[in-house]
């Protein structure tokens, strides 16, 4: 198992804020909109340097999505910011018609995704957003795994022409990816090469997968770990290549197993290479109030759950 270390913990939303600021410096067409959550989305640096390119829309997410779609017509590259729940479920039809169907170059940037939002509880902890967004034709769906990757992803989507959903979170987590990485949309990142099982993880679950990989190594299991930061378009080639070698797969995501990364992987494998698969994901449930760590443990999203899923799926190999 390749050794991953970290010297600091940071939130992925701060990676977004830093990436937005950089993207704003590079391209004057980058504009930002927010629905009364500037501090939570870490947009302060962008607003300070480019006040005229920032639009505060107030608590009116539907209007925000529509305004963003309209701004693209004048050549702008709008980044909308609010919590993941209000970025997707609340405005699904606005995204569907004014952004996706109209093929507008809007970047829907969503913080506080999943259970790790914590104490606010289930009203704010969306676990369905990946599914909602990946079903929209033409929508790119990205869920980066740490501060550095989120920053790089934010800068990369500014260069990409077309609608994007960028999902990130609230808690501070280890920063373990390269600060100078080049983010390639749709390209998987090989975290660790192994032979016994393929662990495919996205977002906050990537660090959990690394922790699980270390425990599995102690048990004599050599896990291949792949970071799928882009859930759509999926890196079919990387997944198939790995699964051909290992013969089984565990998918890990902070999302409902209905409609998430795991289902995308299952769709690929069932048509191309039928393979035993286990899902580490929430199981058709809402969340609740608690600390992020408590919630990840209670809803089965810890390293120990990945280890158990790996042992189970290896047992299913023919």
């Amino acid at each position, binding site marked *: 198992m390749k050794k991953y270390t970290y010297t600091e913990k940071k939130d992925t939303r701060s990676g977004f804020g830093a990436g937005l600021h950089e993207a704003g410096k590079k391209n004057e067409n980058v504009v930002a909109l927010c629905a009364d959550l500037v501090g939570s989305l870490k947009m302060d640096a962008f607003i300070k340097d480019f006040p005229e390119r920032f639009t505060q829309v107030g608590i009116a997410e539907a*209007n925000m999505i529509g305004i963003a*779609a309209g701004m693209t017509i004048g050549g702008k590259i709008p980044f909308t910011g609010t919590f993941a729940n209000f970025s997707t479920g609340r405005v699904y039809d606005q995204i569907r018609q004014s952004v996706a169907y109209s093929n507008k170059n809007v970047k829907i940037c969503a913080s506080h995704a999943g259970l790790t939002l914590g104490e606010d509880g289930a009203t704010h902890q969306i676990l369905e957003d990946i599914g909602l967004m990946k079903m929209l034709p033409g929508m790119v769906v990205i869920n980066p795994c740490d501060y550095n990757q989120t920053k790089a992803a934010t800068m990369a989507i500014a260069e990409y022409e077309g609608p994007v959903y960028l999902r990130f979170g609230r808690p501070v987590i280890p920063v373990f990816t390269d600060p100078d990485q080049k983010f390639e949309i749709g390209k998987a990142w090989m975290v660790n090469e192994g032979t016994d099982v393929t662990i495919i993880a996205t977002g906050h679950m990537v660090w959990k997968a690394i922790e699980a990989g270390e425990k599995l190594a102690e048990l004599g299991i050599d896990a291949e770990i792949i970071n799928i930061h882009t859930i759509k378009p999926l890196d079919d080639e990387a997944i198939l290549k790995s699964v051909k070698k290992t013969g089984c797969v565990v998918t890990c995501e902070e999302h409902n197993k209905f409609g998430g990364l795991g289902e995308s992987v299952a769709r690929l494998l069932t048509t191309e290479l039928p393979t035993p698969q286990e899902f580490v994901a929430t199981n058709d449930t809402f969340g609740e109030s608690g600390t992020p760590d408590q919630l990840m443990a209670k809803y089965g999203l810890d390293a120990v759950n990945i280890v158990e899923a790996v042992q189970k799926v290896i047992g299913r190999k023919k």
Partner: protein
Amino acid sequence: MKHTIKELEDIASQIRRDIVRMVHGCQSGHPGASLGCTDFFTALYFEVMNHKTDFTMEGAGEDLFFLSNGHISPVWYSTLAHAGYFDKSELATFRKLDSRLQGHPTTHEHLPGIRVASGSLGQGLSVAIGAALAKKLNGDKSIIFALLGDGELQEGQNWEAAMFAPFNKVDHLIASVDYNGQQIDGPTSKVLALDDLQAKFEAFGWHVINTDGNDMQSIVEGLHYAKTLTGKGKPILNLMSTQMGAGVDYMMGTHKWHGTAPNDEQLAAALAQLPETLGDY
């Protein structure tokens, strides 16, 4: 004036012919409010707006138009065709397979003149505001026009947009409301009353004007006047009274023709009231 009122009325007559023929041709679509808004579209595209038929998405230096109540696509398509955006023969493909003239307007098939999809109601004013903000950032002083249905104002997003625009001094925006008082399930006064729209928009901070949307003189003068109000700190709302089905006697004064196609006899009766002025498609 680029055209006399009589010339504009003649164009409107042809567009009304197209509308009933298009809806008859595919036996679906929305003739009622299309006919009601024909004079508005004619005034906008043939007299009021500064626009180029050599279409670009950005429309730099041009006035832009956004249709929020997308179901009245027949009037827009016919107007665009006669204005020169595409050949009028294409009107025959309306709502048919492989057509660029989808049931509701969309950019998906790249029809010149359309800049965003609409159909699911209540979204157009927000998009128009966004286009206006982008023009402002680009130093482009052109005007953004939008048309909203009156029943559509029951959608909450309109009021988010209505609150946003005056607060942010989006003052090169002229939104018109097709105030025909009808919607699918009956008169708006019975379904969910709109009451005093002028007072409501004024309370939100808009400069409201009133026009008769089926009187060419009134609508042309009203829109020209609205243009003189731009750049003064407030968005402008043109509260435009219309008759659903205007120009076809048996379609007027009822919500029945909101989304119903005429049969052969009804088509003939409609066409008898609408002189062919520019040549049928």
